């Protein structure tokens, strides 16, 4: 059952990921954004299979619910048309494809050769409580720094989107 769901979710995530970046039917950014949302939802499904319930919920809440809405918002505000089909730089595309495929190959080979550390069995149970304790004890400093980072980002965005500064 879980294995089946894994296959289903990962296949769908990969498919939607592919349609995000290289949709053969349309080049509209809105379609890309929507497929990215779907990818994230399937990834959240994978997180659930990994018993990381908290992360799955945060994934949906932050990525699908906030970040991608922002993306859509910006796409609509800028009124971006479909990408024009400009002439491809053949050399660039070929080089890009080769490097991407090369990277995929290297990772795959590494993965196949690797001897897994640990038991290889799924062990960790999704422990929201433990995660919270860890965040607020062991990782308290990074947590605070991240919150300051969010504040800085907020201020930066407000400054950037103001039309003129008084």
């Amino acid at each position, binding site marked *: 059952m*879980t*294995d*089946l769901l894994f296959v289903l979710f*990962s296949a769908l*995530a*990969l498919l939607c*990921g592919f349609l*995000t*970046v*290289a949709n053969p039917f349309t*080049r509209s*950014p809105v379609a890309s954004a929507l497929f*990215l949302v779907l990818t994230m939802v399937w*990834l959240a499904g*994978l*997180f659930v299979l*990994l018993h*990381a319930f*908290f*992360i799955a919920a*945060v*994934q949906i809440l*932050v*990525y699908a619910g906030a*970040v991608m809405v*922002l*993306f859509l918002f*910006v*796409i609509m505000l*800028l009124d971006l048309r479909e*990408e024009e089909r400009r002439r491809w730089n053949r050399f660039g*595309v070929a080089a*890009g*494809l080769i490097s*991407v*495929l090369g*990277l995929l190959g290297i*990772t*795959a080979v590494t*993965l196949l050769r*690797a001897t*897994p550390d640990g*038991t*290889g069995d*799924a*062990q*960790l149970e999704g*422990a929201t409580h*433990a*995660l919270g304790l860890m965040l607020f004890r*062991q*990782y308290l400093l990074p947590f605070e720094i991240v919150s300051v*980072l*969010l504040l800085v*980002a*907020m201020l*930066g*965005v407000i400054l*950037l*989107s103001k039309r003129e500064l008084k």
Partner: protein
Amino acid sequence: MTGMHIGLEHYLFVSAALFCLGLLGVVLRRNLLVLYMGLELMLNASNLALVAFSRFLNHLNGQVMVFFIITVAAAEVAVGLALIVALYRKRQTAHVEDLASLKL
């Protein structure tokens, strides 16, 4: 149940494939926003790998890391999109090939 046993390496492979898809988007697409989505896809792929590690190595560090990545990604997206909007206001384009003023 189905004979095949899903282990860490399967998750890692999915993660690697997603990462490459994101990279493909960054390489192939020319729209700044779609490019940015490719970056998000890569971040998500790394998240998947980290959560899988966390599960199979029985340690919560991976999930904590993912939590931070998501937070930082949200901040990054906010700033990045604001930059794109500012750029669009100045240049009326979101196409990377039109942004070549630094080119010799």
